[in-house]
Protein backbone atom coordinates (compact mmCIF):
# COMPACT_ATOMS: atom_id res chain seq x y z
CA UNK A 1 0.00 0.00 0.00
CA UNK A 2 1.43 3.38 -0.90
CA UNK A 3 1.80 5.94 1.86
CA UNK A 4 -0.80 8.68 2.17
CA UNK A 5 -0.06 12.31 1.39
CA UNK A 6 1.34 13.02 4.81
CA UNK A 7 3.23 9.79 5.27
CA UNK A 8 6.90 10.24 6.11
CA UNK A 9 9.36 8.32 4.01
CA UNK A 10 13.08 7.88 3.64
CA UNK A 11 14.70 8.67 0.32
CA UNK A 12 16.16 5.18 -0.01
CA UNK A 13 12.62 3.79 0.02
CA UNK A 14 11.69 5.76 -3.07
CA UNK A 15 13.63 3.65 -5.54
CA UNK A 16 14.51 6.47 -7.93
CA UNK A 17 17.82 6.68 -9.77
CA UNK A 18 17.08 10.22 -10.83
CA UNK A 19 16.10 13.15 -8.63
CA UNK A 20 14.96 16.63 -9.51
CA UNK A 21 15.51 19.15 -6.73
CA UNK A 22 12.96 21.96 -6.87
CA UNK A 23 12.60 25.12 -4.84
CA UNK A 24 10.14 26.59 -7.35
CA UNK A 25 8.27 25.48 -10.45
CA UNK A 26 10.75 26.80 -13.01
CA UNK A 27 11.50 24.24 -15.73
CA UNK A 28 10.14 21.51 -13.51
CA UNK A 29 8.41 19.51 -16.26
CA UNK A 30 11.43 19.85 -18.55
CA UNK A 31 13.78 18.56 -15.84
CA UNK A 32 11.50 15.63 -15.00
CA UNK A 33 11.36 14.83 -18.70
CA UNK A 34 15.17 15.03 -19.06
CA UNK A 35 15.72 12.63 -16.15
CA UNK A 36 13.04 10.30 -17.51
CA UNK A 37 14.72 10.28 -20.93
CA UNK A 38 17.99 9.34 -19.22
CA UNK A 39 16.31 6.04 -18.45
CA UNK A 40 15.80 6.67 -14.76
CA UNK A 41 12.88 6.47 -12.42
CA UNK A 42 12.21 10.06 -11.32
CA UNK A 43 11.56 11.50 -7.89
CA UNK A 44 11.19 15.21 -7.18
CA UNK A 45 12.39 16.65 -3.90
CA UNK A 46 10.12 19.70 -3.58
CA UNK A 47 11.35 22.14 -0.94
CA UNK A 48 8.68 24.74 -0.32
CA UNK A 49 4.97 25.10 0.31
CA UNK A 50 2.34 22.45 -0.40
CA UNK A 51 1.48 24.20 -3.68
CA UNK A 52 5.01 23.46 -4.95
CA UNK A 53 4.63 19.78 -4.08
CA UNK A 54 1.30 19.74 -5.95
CA UNK A 55 2.89 21.36 -9.01
CA UNK A 56 5.72 18.84 -8.86
CA UNK A 57 3.23 15.96 -8.68
CA UNK A 58 1.65 17.18 -11.91
CA UNK A 59 4.99 17.48 -13.71
CA UNK A 60 5.33 13.78 -14.47
CA UNK A 61 7.57 12.17 -11.83
CA UNK A 62 6.97 8.79 -10.20
CA UNK A 63 6.87 10.30 -6.76
CA UNK A 64 7.34 13.57 -4.88
CA UNK A 65 9.24 13.92 -1.62
CA UNK A 66 7.95 17.10 -0.05
CA UNK A 67 10.08 19.07 2.39
CA UNK A 68 7.77 21.66 3.90
CA UNK A 69 9.51 24.96 4.58
CA UNK A 70 8.74 26.79 7.80
CA UNK A 71 7.43 30.34 7.65
CA UNK A 72 10.14 32.82 6.67
CA UNK A 73 12.70 30.09 6.18
CA UNK A 74 14.06 29.90 2.60
CA UNK A 75 14.61 26.63 0.75
CA UNK A 76 18.38 27.09 1.05
CA UNK A 77 18.15 26.45 4.79
CA UNK A 78 17.16 22.85 4.06
CA UNK A 79 20.00 22.22 1.59
CA UNK A 80 22.52 20.60 3.99
CA UNK A 81 19.91 18.33 5.59
CA UNK A 82 18.32 17.41 2.24
CA UNK A 83 21.78 16.58 0.90
CA UNK A 84 22.36 14.13 3.71
CA UNK A 85 18.91 12.60 3.21
CA UNK A 86 19.43 12.20 -0.54
CA UNK A 87 22.81 10.54 -0.16
CA UNK A 88 20.94 7.53 1.28
CA UNK A 89 18.98 7.22 -1.97
CA UNK A 90 22.24 6.87 -3.96
CA UNK A 91 20.84 8.47 -7.14
CA UNK A 92 22.79 8.36 -10.41
CA UNK A 93 21.59 11.76 -11.57
CA UNK A 94 20.40 14.92 -9.86
CA UNK A 95 18.99 17.91 -11.69
CA UNK A 96 18.06 21.39 -10.48
CA UNK A 97 17.22 24.75 -12.01
CA UNK A 98 20.09 27.24 -12.11
CA UNK A 99 18.31 29.58 -9.70
CA UNK A 100 19.95 30.62 -6.40
CA UNK A 101 17.87 28.22 -4.25
CA UNK A 102 18.04 25.45 -6.87
CA UNK A 103 21.81 25.70 -6.97
CA UNK A 104 22.10 25.71 -3.18
CA UNK A 105 20.04 22.51 -2.97
CA UNK A 106 22.09 20.87 -5.71
CA UNK A 107 25.48 21.89 -4.32
CA UNK A 108 24.85 20.42 -0.90
CA UNK A 109 23.36 17.22 -2.32
CA UNK A 110 26.17 16.80 -4.85
CA UNK A 111 28.87 16.97 -2.21
CA UNK A 112 26.97 14.66 0.15
CA UNK A 113 26.59 12.19 -2.70
CA UNK A 114 30.14 12.54 -4.02
CA UNK A 115 28.90 13.49 -7.48
CA UNK A 116 30.37 15.71 -10.14
CA UNK A 117 28.64 19.07 -10.76
CA UNK A 118 27.93 20.15 -14.33
CA UNK A 119 26.09 23.31 -15.41
CA UNK A 120 24.08 23.75 -18.61
CA UNK A 121 22.69 20.20 -18.85
CA UNK A 122 20.59 19.60 -21.98
CA UNK A 123 20.38 15.79 -22.10
CA UNK A 124 21.36 12.89 -19.87
CA UNK A 125 21.65 9.18 -20.42
CA UNK A 126 22.67 6.38 -18.10
CA UNK A 127 24.65 3.69 -19.92
CA UNK A 128 25.83 0.90 -17.66
CA UNK A 129 28.13 2.40 -15.07
CA UNK A 130 28.50 5.67 -16.95
CA UNK A 131 26.36 8.78 -17.03
CA UNK A 132 26.65 10.69 -20.31
CA UNK A 133 25.64 14.33 -20.38
CA UNK A 134 25.28 16.89 -23.16
CA UNK A 135 25.70 20.39 -21.88
CA UNK A 136 25.73 23.85 -23.34
CA UNK A 137 28.99 25.68 -22.68
CA UNK A 138 30.84 28.90 -23.49
CA UNK A 139 27.69 30.99 -23.51
CA UNK A 140 25.91 28.63 -25.90
CA UNK A 141 28.70 28.54 -28.48
CA UNK A 142 29.31 24.80 -28.08
CA UNK A 143 27.63 21.67 -26.87
CA UNK A 144 29.98 19.40 -24.97
CA UNK A 145 29.44 15.71 -24.35
CA UNK A 146 30.79 14.51 -21.02
CA UNK A 147 30.96 11.08 -19.45
CA UNK A 148 31.44 10.18 -15.81
CA UNK A 149 31.54 7.05 -13.72
CA UNK A 150 30.43 9.18 -10.76
CA UNK A 151 26.86 10.34 -10.13
CA UNK A 152 26.14 13.52 -12.09
CA UNK A 153 24.56 16.55 -10.44
CA UNK A 154 23.49 18.92 -13.16
CA UNK A 155 22.07 22.40 -13.45
CA UNK A 156 19.50 22.36 -16.19
CA UNK A 157 20.26 24.47 -19.26
CA UNK A 158 17.35 23.50 -21.48
CA UNK A 159 14.07 25.20 -22.26
CA UNK A 160 10.85 24.67 -20.39
CA UNK A 161 8.27 22.25 -21.77
CA UNK A 162 4.64 21.71 -20.79
CA UNK A 163 3.91 18.63 -18.73
CA UNK A 164 2.16 15.80 -20.55
CA UNK A 165 1.67 13.76 -17.40
CA UNK A 166 -1.77 12.18 -17.21
CA UNK A 167 -1.49 10.95 -13.64
CA UNK A 168 -0.50 12.86 -10.54
CA UNK A 169 2.40 11.39 -8.65
CA UNK A 170 1.94 10.59 -4.96
CA UNK A 171 3.28 13.17 -2.52
CA UNK A 172 5.16 11.85 0.46
CA UNK A 173 6.54 13.96 3.25
CA UNK A 174 10.28 13.86 3.68
CA UNK A 175 11.62 14.75 7.07
CA UNK A 176 14.91 16.35 6.03
CA UNK A 177 15.92 17.35 9.54
CA UNK A 178 16.53 20.76 11.04
CA UNK A 179 17.07 23.69 8.70
CA UNK A 180 20.20 25.81 8.84
CA UNK A 181 20.00 29.16 10.62
CA UNK A 182 18.68 31.30 7.75
CA UNK A 183 15.66 33.62 8.03
CA UNK A 184 13.84 35.82 5.57
CA UNK A 185 13.57 39.11 7.43
CA UNK A 186 11.76 41.16 4.84
CA UNK A 187 10.42 40.86 1.31
CA UNK A 188 9.48 43.94 -0.66
CA UNK A 189 8.63 44.56 -4.30
CA UNK A 190 11.84 45.47 -6.11
CA UNK A 191 11.93 48.95 -7.58
CA UNK A 192 10.13 49.00 -10.88
CA UNK A 193 8.93 45.44 -10.39
CA UNK A 194 5.33 46.24 -11.23
CA UNK A 195 4.38 47.43 -14.68
CA UNK A 196 6.99 48.72 -17.11
CA UNK A 197 9.16 46.07 -18.72
CA UNK A 198 8.23 43.32 -16.25
CA UNK A 199 4.72 42.92 -17.62
CA UNK A 200 5.30 44.18 -21.16
CA UNK A 201 4.23 42.07 -24.11
CA UNK A 202 6.81 43.75 -26.34
CA UNK A 203 10.11 45.37 -25.40
CA UNK A 204 12.65 47.38 -27.37
CA UNK A 205 15.91 47.25 -25.43
CA UNK A 206 18.85 49.56 -26.06
CA UNK A 207 22.55 48.97 -25.48
CA UNK A 208 25.94 50.50 -25.95
CA UNK A 209 25.55 50.55 -29.71
CA UNK A 210 23.82 53.90 -29.22
CA UNK A 211 26.36 56.70 -29.36
CA UNK A 212 24.46 59.38 -27.45
CA UNK A 213 21.46 59.72 -25.17
CA UNK A 214 19.71 61.89 -27.72
CA UNK A 215 19.86 58.96 -30.19
CA UNK A 216 17.54 56.95 -27.95
CA UNK A 217 14.72 58.86 -29.62
CA UNK A 218 15.12 56.44 -32.52
CA UNK A 219 14.40 53.49 -30.22
CA UNK A 220 11.52 55.30 -28.54
CA UNK A 221 9.97 55.95 -31.92
CA UNK A 222 10.28 52.26 -32.86
CA UNK A 223 8.86 51.27 -29.48
CA UNK A 224 5.88 53.55 -30.08
CA UNK A 225 5.30 51.95 -33.49
CA UNK A 226 5.43 48.48 -31.91
CA UNK A 227 3.45 49.37 -28.78
CA UNK A 228 6.52 48.32 -26.80
CA UNK A 229 8.19 49.35 -23.56
CA UNK A 230 11.79 50.58 -23.54
CA UNK A 231 14.35 48.45 -21.71
CA UNK A 232 18.13 48.57 -21.61
CA UNK A 233 21.34 46.73 -20.80
CA UNK A 234 23.21 47.41 -17.56
CA UNK A 235 25.72 50.03 -18.78
CA UNK A 236 22.97 52.19 -20.27
CA UNK A 237 21.24 52.51 -16.87
CA UNK A 238 24.23 52.17 -14.61
CA UNK A 239 27.25 53.78 -16.29
CA UNK A 240 25.52 56.30 -18.54
CA UNK A 241 22.24 56.91 -16.67
CA UNK A 242 20.41 57.32 -19.97
CA UNK A 243 17.48 55.08 -18.99
CA UNK A 244 15.87 54.63 -15.56
CA UNK A 245 17.42 51.81 -13.59
CA UNK A 246 14.12 49.95 -13.20
CA UNK A 247 14.23 49.36 -16.96
CA UNK A 248 17.60 47.60 -16.83
CA UNK A 249 17.18 43.98 -17.93
CA UNK A 250 19.59 41.34 -16.70
CA UNK A 251 20.37 38.92 -13.95
CA UNK A 252 20.53 41.57 -11.24
CA UNK A 253 17.91 43.76 -12.95
CA UNK A 254 14.51 42.94 -14.37
CA UNK A 255 13.71 39.46 -15.58
CA UNK A 256 11.27 39.80 -18.46
CA UNK A 257 9.06 37.46 -20.44
CA UNK A 258 7.64 39.41 -23.40
CA UNK A 259 6.37 37.78 -26.57
CA UNK A 260 8.74 40.02 -28.53
CA UNK A 261 12.11 41.32 -27.38
CA UNK A 262 14.03 43.54 -29.77
CA UNK A 263 17.65 44.03 -28.63
CA UNK A 264 19.31 46.92 -30.39
CA UNK A 265 23.02 47.57 -30.01
CA UNK A 266 23.22 44.99 -27.21
CA UNK A 267 26.05 42.45 -27.47
CA UNK A 268 24.37 39.92 -25.18
CA UNK A 269 26.54 39.32 -22.13
CA UNK A 270 25.58 36.27 -20.06
CA UNK A 271 24.16 38.42 -17.30
CA UNK A 272 21.93 40.30 -19.77
CA UNK A 273 20.75 37.10 -21.45
CA UNK A 274 19.72 35.69 -18.08
CA UNK A 275 17.18 38.49 -17.85
CA UNK A 276 15.58 37.62 -21.22
CA UNK A 277 15.67 33.88 -20.81
CA UNK A 278 11.87 33.68 -20.80
CA UNK A 279 11.30 35.98 -23.78
CA UNK A 280 9.42 34.16 -26.55
CA UNK A 281 10.88 35.73 -29.69
CA UNK A 282 14.18 37.61 -29.56
CA UNK A 283 15.28 39.92 -32.38
CA UNK A 284 18.84 41.24 -32.43
CA UNK A 285 20.18 44.24 -34.31
CA UNK A 286 23.94 44.62 -34.04
CA UNK A 287 26.90 45.56 -36.24
CA UNK A 288 28.96 42.60 -34.95
CA UNK A 289 27.85 39.30 -36.50
CA UNK A 290 29.76 37.46 -33.75
CA UNK A 291 27.84 39.18 -30.93
CA UNK A 292 26.47 36.57 -28.48
CA UNK A 293 22.96 38.06 -28.80
CA UNK A 294 22.70 36.40 -32.23
CA UNK A 295 23.15 33.01 -30.60
CA UNK A 296 20.22 33.63 -28.26
CA UNK A 297 18.15 35.43 -30.85
CA UNK A 298 15.49 33.99 -33.12
CA UNK A 299 15.93 36.65 -35.79
CA UNK A 300 18.68 39.11 -36.51
CA UNK A 301 19.87 41.90 -38.70
CA UNK A 302 23.59 42.60 -38.89
CA UNK A 303 23.79 46.29 -39.51
CA UNK A 304 24.05 49.84 -38.28
CA UNK A 305 21.17 50.56 -35.91
CA UNK A 306 20.99 54.12 -37.22
CA UNK A 307 19.97 52.69 -40.60
CA UNK A 308 18.08 49.61 -39.46
CA UNK A 309 15.68 51.28 -36.99
CA UNK A 310 14.20 53.75 -39.53
CA UNK A 311 13.94 50.86 -42.01
CA UNK A 312 12.08 48.78 -39.45
CA UNK A 313 9.66 51.58 -38.72
CA UNK A 314 9.02 51.99 -42.42
CA UNK A 315 8.44 48.25 -42.86
CA UNK A 316 6.00 48.21 -39.94
CA UNK A 317 4.02 50.94 -41.63
CA UNK A 318 3.71 49.07 -44.92
Amino acid at each position, binding site marked *: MSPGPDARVRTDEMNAEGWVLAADTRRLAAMVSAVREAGCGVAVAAVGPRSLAEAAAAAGPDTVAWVETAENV*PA*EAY*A*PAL*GRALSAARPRVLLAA*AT*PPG*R*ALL*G*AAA*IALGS*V*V*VPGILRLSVKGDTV*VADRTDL*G*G*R*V*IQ*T*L*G*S*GAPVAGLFGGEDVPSHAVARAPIERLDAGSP*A*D*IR*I*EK*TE*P*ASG*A*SGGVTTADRIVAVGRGFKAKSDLGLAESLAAA*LGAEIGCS*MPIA*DDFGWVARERYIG*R*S*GQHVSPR*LYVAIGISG*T*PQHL*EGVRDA*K*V*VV*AVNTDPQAPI*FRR*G*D*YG*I*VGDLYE*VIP*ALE*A*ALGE
Partner: protein
Amino acid sequence: MKVVVVYKWARDPEDAAVRSDGSVDWRGARMAAGEDDPAAVAVGHAIAAARGCGLVGLTIGDGDASWALARGVEQAVAVPDAPSLTDNAATAALLAAAIRWIGDVDVVVIGDAEAYPGVPAALAGALGWPALLGVSTATFECGRLVATRRVGDSEQVVSLGLPAVFGAAAASGEKRAPGMKEILAARKRPVTAVPLAELGGTPPDRLESRGTRVPEAGSARVFEGSPASAARQLVAALRADGVL
Protein backbone atom coordinates in the same frame (compact mmCIF):
# COMPACT_ATOMS: atom_id res chain seq x y z
CA MET B 1 37.97 35.25 12.53
CA LYS B 2 38.46 36.04 8.86
CA VAL B 3 36.36 36.76 5.83
CA VAL B 4 37.68 35.27 2.59
CA VAL B 5 36.84 36.67 -0.82
CA VAL B 6 37.51 34.30 -3.71
CA TYR B 7 38.50 36.01 -6.96
CA LYS B 8 39.98 35.12 -10.34
CA TRP B 9 39.00 31.50 -9.91
CA ALA B 10 37.90 30.68 -13.48
CA ARG B 11 38.70 31.46 -17.09
CA ASP B 12 36.54 33.88 -19.05
CA PRO B 13 34.51 31.88 -21.61
CA GLU B 14 34.94 34.76 -24.03
CA ASP B 15 38.69 33.99 -24.07
CA ALA B 16 38.00 30.64 -25.72
CA ALA B 17 37.95 30.39 -29.50
CA VAL B 18 35.50 27.94 -31.06
CA ARG B 19 36.66 26.53 -34.38
CA SER B 20 34.26 25.66 -37.19
CA ASP B 21 34.49 21.96 -36.29
CA GLY B 22 33.31 22.78 -32.77
CA SER B 23 36.67 22.23 -31.10
CA VAL B 24 37.64 24.73 -28.43
CA ASP B 25 40.96 26.53 -28.15
CA TRP B 26 41.57 28.37 -24.89
CA ARG B 27 44.68 29.97 -26.44
CA GLY B 28 46.57 30.00 -23.13
CA ALA B 29 43.80 31.92 -21.36
CA ARG B 30 44.49 32.63 -17.72
CA MET B 31 42.16 32.77 -14.78
CA ALA B 32 40.44 36.13 -15.08
CA ALA B 33 38.39 38.42 -12.88
CA GLY B 34 34.74 37.64 -13.53
CA GLU B 35 32.08 40.32 -13.88
CA ASP B 36 30.88 39.48 -10.35
CA ASP B 37 34.33 39.57 -8.71
CA PRO B 38 34.21 43.31 -7.89
CA ALA B 39 30.81 42.74 -6.25
CA ALA B 40 32.32 39.92 -4.19
CA VAL B 41 35.13 42.18 -3.02
CA ALA B 42 32.61 44.89 -2.08
CA VAL B 43 30.50 42.41 -0.09
CA GLY B 44 33.62 41.02 1.58
CA HIS B 45 34.76 44.52 2.57
CA ALA B 46 31.32 45.38 3.98
CA ILE B 47 31.16 42.27 6.17
CA ALA B 48 34.78 42.53 7.35
CA ALA B 49 34.35 46.22 8.23
CA ALA B 50 31.11 45.57 10.16
CA ARG B 51 32.76 42.76 12.13
CA GLY B 52 36.11 44.47 12.54
CA CYS B 53 37.92 41.44 11.15
CA GLY B 54 40.40 40.80 8.38
CA LEU B 55 39.60 40.26 4.70
CA VAL B 56 41.76 37.72 2.88
CA GLY B 57 41.72 37.28 -0.89
CA LEU B 58 42.01 33.80 -2.39
CA THR B 59 42.77 33.11 -6.03
CA ILE B 60 43.62 29.95 -7.90
CA GLY B 61 45.58 29.45 -11.08
CA ASP B 62 47.84 31.73 -13.01
CA GLY B 63 46.00 35.05 -12.90
CA ASP B 64 47.52 38.23 -11.47
CA ALA B 65 46.91 37.83 -7.72
CA SER B 66 47.48 41.54 -7.02
CA TRP B 67 44.02 42.31 -8.46
CA ALA B 68 42.42 42.05 -5.02
CA LEU B 69 45.28 43.86 -3.26
CA ALA B 70 44.66 46.82 -5.57
CA ARG B 71 41.06 46.77 -4.30
CA GLY B 72 41.91 47.08 -0.64
CA VAL B 73 42.12 43.42 0.37
CA GLU B 74 44.75 43.13 3.10
CA GLN B 75 46.28 39.78 2.27
CA ALA B 76 46.25 37.63 -0.85
CA VAL B 77 46.66 33.86 -0.98
CA ALA B 78 47.21 32.18 -4.34
CA VAL B 79 47.32 28.57 -5.45
CA PRO B 80 49.28 29.27 -8.65
CA ASP B 81 49.51 25.70 -9.94
CA ALA B 82 45.77 24.99 -9.61
CA PRO B 83 44.38 23.86 -12.96
CA SER B 84 41.08 24.83 -14.57
CA LEU B 85 38.71 21.91 -13.99
CA THR B 86 35.51 20.97 -15.81
CA ASP B 87 33.83 19.55 -12.73
CA ASN B 88 32.45 22.42 -10.62
CA ALA B 89 32.59 20.15 -7.56
CA ALA B 90 36.33 19.59 -8.09
CA THR B 91 36.95 23.32 -8.33
CA ALA B 92 34.93 23.77 -5.16
CA ALA B 93 36.92 21.05 -3.38
CA LEU B 94 40.14 22.80 -4.31
CA LEU B 95 38.85 26.15 -3.02
CA ALA B 96 37.58 24.53 0.18
CA ALA B 97 41.02 23.00 0.81
CA ALA B 98 42.64 26.42 0.39
CA ILE B 99 40.09 28.02 2.75
CA ARG B 100 40.85 25.39 5.37
CA TRP B 101 44.55 26.08 4.84
CA ILE B 102 43.98 29.80 5.51
CA GLY B 103 42.18 28.77 8.70
CA ASP B 104 39.94 30.62 11.14
CA VAL B 105 37.50 31.53 8.35
CA ASP B 106 33.75 31.73 8.90
CA VAL B 107 32.52 33.75 5.91
CA VAL B 108 33.39 33.13 2.27
CA VAL B 109 32.26 35.45 -0.51
CA ILE B 110 32.65 34.37 -4.12
CA GLY B 111 31.54 35.98 -7.37
CA ASP B 112 28.36 34.20 -8.48
CA ALA B 113 29.63 33.67 -12.02
CA GLU B 114 27.04 32.95 -14.68
CA ALA B 115 29.41 30.59 -16.52
CA TYR B 116 30.26 28.44 -13.49
CA PRO B 117 27.04 28.46 -11.47
CA GLY B 118 27.75 25.19 -9.65
CA VAL B 119 30.95 26.32 -7.95
CA PRO B 120 29.62 28.64 -5.20
CA ALA B 121 26.98 26.12 -4.11
CA ALA B 122 29.37 23.17 -4.26
CA LEU B 123 31.90 25.21 -2.27
CA ALA B 124 29.31 25.63 0.48
CA GLY B 125 28.65 21.89 0.30
CA ALA B 126 32.36 21.11 0.52
CA LEU B 127 32.73 23.33 3.58
CA GLY B 128 29.49 21.97 5.07
CA TRP B 129 28.12 25.50 5.38
CA PRO B 130 24.82 27.02 4.20
CA ALA B 131 24.90 29.01 0.95
CA LEU B 132 23.05 32.15 -0.02
CA LEU B 133 23.50 32.95 -3.71
CA GLY B 134 22.64 35.89 -5.94
CA VAL B 135 23.44 38.30 -3.09
CA SER B 136 23.79 41.98 -3.98
CA THR B 137 24.80 43.48 -0.61
CA ALA B 138 25.64 42.15 2.83
CA THR B 139 26.71 43.30 6.27
CA PHE B 140 26.93 42.03 9.84
CA GLU B 141 24.44 43.21 12.49
CA CYS B 142 23.71 41.99 16.02
CA GLY B 143 25.75 38.83 15.59
CA ARG B 144 24.17 37.83 12.27
CA LEU B 145 25.02 38.22 8.61
CA VAL B 146 22.38 40.25 6.80
CA ALA B 147 22.15 40.10 3.01
CA THR B 148 19.90 41.48 0.32
CA ARG B 149 19.10 39.73 -2.90
CA ARG B 150 16.63 39.85 -5.69
CA VAL B 151 14.12 37.01 -5.97
CA GLY B 152 11.88 37.34 -8.99
CA ASP B 153 10.11 40.67 -8.68
CA SER B 154 10.98 41.07 -5.02
CA GLU B 155 13.92 42.22 -2.98
CA GLN B 156 14.56 39.99 -0.01
CA VAL B 157 16.48 40.71 3.18
CA VAL B 158 17.85 37.49 4.66
CA SER B 159 19.79 36.96 7.89
CA LEU B 160 22.11 34.05 8.58
CA GLY B 161 24.15 32.71 11.42
CA LEU B 162 27.83 32.00 10.93
CA PRO B 163 29.47 30.32 9.07
CA ALA B 164 28.13 30.90 5.56
CA VAL B 165 29.05 31.12 1.89
CA PHE B 166 27.76 34.06 -0.14
CA GLY B 167 27.57 34.11 -3.93
CA ALA B 168 27.75 37.80 -4.88
CA ALA B 169 26.03 38.95 -8.08
CA ALA B 170 26.93 42.29 -9.64
CA ALA B 171 24.06 44.74 -9.59
CA SER B 172 26.17 47.24 -11.54
CA GLY B 173 29.56 47.59 -13.13
CA GLU B 174 32.59 48.24 -10.90
CA LYS B 175 32.03 51.67 -9.40
CA ARG B 176 35.59 52.57 -8.63
CA ALA B 177 38.23 50.61 -10.47
CA PRO B 178 41.72 51.19 -9.02
CA GLY B 179 44.01 53.61 -10.79
CA MET B 180 47.44 52.82 -12.17
CA LYS B 181 49.11 54.00 -8.95
CA GLU B 182 47.08 51.54 -6.85
CA ILE B 183 47.68 48.72 -9.32
CA LEU B 184 51.43 49.24 -9.37
CA ALA B 185 51.60 49.53 -5.56
CA ALA B 186 49.59 46.30 -5.23
CA ARG B 187 51.99 44.46 -7.52
CA LYS B 188 54.84 45.21 -5.13
CA ARG B 189 53.02 43.67 -2.17
CA PRO B 190 53.65 40.04 -1.24
CA VAL B 191 51.26 37.28 -2.21
CA THR B 192 51.24 34.07 -0.18
CA ALA B 193 51.66 31.24 -2.67
CA VAL B 194 50.43 27.81 -1.59
CA PRO B 195 51.39 24.90 -3.83
CA LEU B 196 48.64 22.45 -4.68
CA ALA B 197 50.65 19.65 -3.10
CA GLU B 198 50.25 21.37 0.25
CA LEU B 199 46.47 21.21 -0.19
CA GLY B 200 46.44 17.51 -0.97
CA GLY B 201 47.06 17.75 -4.71
CA THR B 202 44.66 18.21 -7.61
CA PRO B 203 41.17 16.86 -6.94
CA PRO B 204 40.42 14.18 -9.53
CA ASP B 205 38.49 15.60 -12.50
CA ARG B 206 36.00 12.77 -12.87
CA LEU B 207 34.50 14.11 -16.09
CA GLU B 208 35.75 12.83 -19.41
CA SER B 209 35.13 15.11 -22.38
CA ARG B 210 33.87 13.18 -25.38
CA GLY B 211 33.97 16.16 -27.66
CA THR B 212 32.41 19.50 -28.40
CA ARG B 213 30.31 20.59 -31.34
CA VAL B 214 28.69 23.74 -32.61
CA PRO B 215 24.93 23.73 -31.88
CA GLU B 216 22.88 22.84 -34.96
CA ALA B 217 20.19 25.34 -34.21
CA GLY B 218 20.11 28.15 -31.74
CA SER B 219 21.58 30.89 -33.84
CA ALA B 220 19.35 33.64 -35.08
CA ARG B 221 18.00 33.59 -38.61
CA VAL B 222 19.83 36.60 -39.95
CA PHE B 223 18.17 38.60 -42.71
CA GLU B 224 20.53 39.76 -45.42
CA GLY B 225 20.41 42.63 -47.86
CA SER B 226 19.97 46.36 -47.53
CA PRO B 227 18.54 47.71 -44.26
CA ALA B 228 15.17 48.21 -45.98
CA SER B 229 15.13 44.70 -47.41
CA ALA B 230 16.27 43.05 -44.16
CA ALA B 231 13.71 45.04 -42.19
CA ARG B 232 10.87 43.99 -44.53
CA GLN B 233 11.90 40.33 -44.23
CA LEU B 234 12.05 40.59 -40.44
CA VAL B 235 8.63 42.22 -40.14
CA ALA B 236 7.15 39.57 -42.45
CA ALA B 237 8.65 36.80 -40.32
CA LEU B 238 7.33 38.33 -37.11
CA ARG B 239 3.86 38.70 -38.65
CA ALA B 240 4.00 35.08 -39.80
CA ASP B 241 4.90 34.03 -36.24
CA GLY B 242 1.94 35.96 -34.89
CA VAL B 243 3.97 38.23 -32.62
CA LEU B 244 3.01 41.37 -34.56
